[in-house]
């Protein structure tokens, strides 16, 4: 194990034993989680390990339940470990807990968790983001040095931005999804949340690579992801996505401009790039993702596992009542939208059209990457919003993923790096997108930005110490 991936309480003390490290993490969770609710399960029996880590509760584990923050899986314990979990364990990590999320990873705030919202460590009245809100809050509050999340449309990067930590969505296919409960299989990818870029690169190296149990996992070589973290950005070409940033204003705009100045200060070439269809990404996303979700979630039928309604007397009632009682409102809304988009008479007008616009978006990104090494935007159009603020307006919640969803639709890797704070002290974030399998190069750019700005050294009041 490298000497990175350290929490504040170990940095000061040099070498700690694996037992001490895991115990310290468990103590930090015990201290802060009553207020944050980043965890759905904590494994007090977590064995010793070189690395205590949290895993989003839609990634299956044999030693703790996997609920997807849904009543329908309330009591589910997986008979096998996800490939990422098995790989972490094989490399000496201990899974100390399962992190909260929006039910089935559907949401941008963890307010859709059936078991209660995760609060933002920087301001307890605000959301931690979502859907991997528990993972981001746990790292931000230094309860764990690293956490796994999952992304379908920004669900690692958006909460990482809201909580002031690093969040990576790798290339589609970079990490095996065996054991990740499927939401939208053509988009889903496991991601990594850490306090620094180097930590993120280290964890990616532990879990990346082909897996015979996931045929969409790539055989592309696993790189030495941290190799260029200190290499700087001199001469590298960054494209500012014009269509994404032209309407930005206020503090988010000023923060983004300051980030561009940091990159230029390191000798990077930063110019305007154009991805004309990027503004349609959310519309495409909510058709494609929900269509796939409606098919994937049909497996929750009350027959083989999960909740079965006690009042069901016929087979149809088992289906309808179990799903009716088990799923929350957002999940039902998405299943309804997806079912509609795939239904006879609407398929081509919605699903077919969305897929064609997605293909156009893919083409536009490929064009832009002929000219640029990276494309940049803010990670989110605004900092963390208040709990309840968007609860009655699903569409405005969806729009908080406007800058992150494109990378999922196109399959490229993207990283969120802390870029400072607004006047209220809420974290802001820079998003750097790269071309397929360019994770090593992403860490290079993010590493430079992080070294120049060092925002990760600022801690929320709630951070364990």
């Amino acid at each position, binding site marked *: 194990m490298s000497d990175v991936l350290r929490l504040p309480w170990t940095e000061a003390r040099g070498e700690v034993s694996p037992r001490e490290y895991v115990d310290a993490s468990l103590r930090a969770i015990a201290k802060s989680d009553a207020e944050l609710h980043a965890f759905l399960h904590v494994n007090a029996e977590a064995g010793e390990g070189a690395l205590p880590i949290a895993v989003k509760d839609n990634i299956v584990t044999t030693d703790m339940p996997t609920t997807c923050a849904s009543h329908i899986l309330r009591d589910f314990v997986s*008979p096998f470990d996800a490939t990422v979990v098995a790989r972490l364990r094989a490399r000496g990590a201990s899974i100390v807990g399962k992190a909260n999320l929006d039910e089935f990873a559907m949401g941008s705030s963890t307010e859709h968790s059936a078991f209660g919202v995760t609060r933002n460590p920087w301001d307890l009245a605000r959301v931690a983001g979502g859907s991997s809100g528990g993972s981001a809050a746990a790292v931000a509050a230094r309860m764990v040095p690293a956490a796994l999340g999952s992304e379908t449309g920004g669900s690692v990067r958006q909460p990482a931005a809201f909580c002031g930590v690093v969040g990576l969505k790798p290339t589609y296919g970079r990490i095996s999804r065996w054991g990740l409960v499927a939401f939208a299989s053509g988009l889903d990818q496991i991601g990594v949340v850490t306090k620094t870029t180097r930590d993120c690169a280290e964890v990616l190296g532990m879990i990346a690579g082909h897996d015979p149990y996931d045929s969409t996992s790539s055989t592309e070589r696993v790189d030495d992801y941290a190799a260029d973290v200190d290499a700087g950005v001199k001469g590298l070409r960054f494209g500012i996505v014009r269509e994404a940033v032209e309407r930005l204003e206020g503090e988010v705009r000023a923060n983004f401009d300051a980030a561009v100045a940091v990159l230029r200060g390191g000798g990077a070439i930063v110019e305007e790039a154009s991805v004309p269809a990027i503004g349609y990404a959310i519309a495409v996303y909510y058709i494609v993702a929900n269509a796939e979700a409606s098919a994937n979630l049909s497996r929750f039928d009350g027959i083989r*596992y999960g909740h079965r309604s006690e009042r069901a007397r016929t087979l149809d009632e088992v289906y309808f009542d179990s799903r009716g009682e088990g799923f929350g409102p957002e999940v039902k809304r998405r299943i309804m939208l997806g079912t509609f988009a795939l239904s006879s008479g609407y398929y081509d007008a919605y699903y077919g059209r969305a897929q064609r616009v997605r293909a*156009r978006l893919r083409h536009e990104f490929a064009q832009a990457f002929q000219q640029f090494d990276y494309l940049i935007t803010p990670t989110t159009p605004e900092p963390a919003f208040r709990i309840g603020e968007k609860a009655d307006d699903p569409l405005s919640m969806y729009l908080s993923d406007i800058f992150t969803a494109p990378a999922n639709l196109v399959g490229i890797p993207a990283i969120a790096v802390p870029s400072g704070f607004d006047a209220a002290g809420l974290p802001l974030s820079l998003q750097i997108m790269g071309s397929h399998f360019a994770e090593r190069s992403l860490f290079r750019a993010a590493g430079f930005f992080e070294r120049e700005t060092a925002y990760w050294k600022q801690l929320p009041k709630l951070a364990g110490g």
Partner: protein
Amino acid sequence: MKIDRDEARRVAALAHLEFDDAGLDRMSEEMTKILTYIDQLREVEAGGFEERDATVTPLRVDEPRPSLDQELVARNAPAWRDGFFVVPKVIGGE
């Protein structure tokens, strides 16, 4: 795109979800709002782009291999007897 109560009911039946009338009205209203936003896709020129990605997911070799132990599967089953999932009687019910 306007979704009315009957359309929401049709989709709910396809999706194996049940709502009461108030729930159907709320759902149709929300779906109408979201689909109206999505309808902006009609203005995008996407002719010449294929619906499907040309890349094909490789398949593994089709060889038998051990599967999950029945006991592990039974542990999560809502109703289980003699190695089978139990469901309400489908044929010849009351």
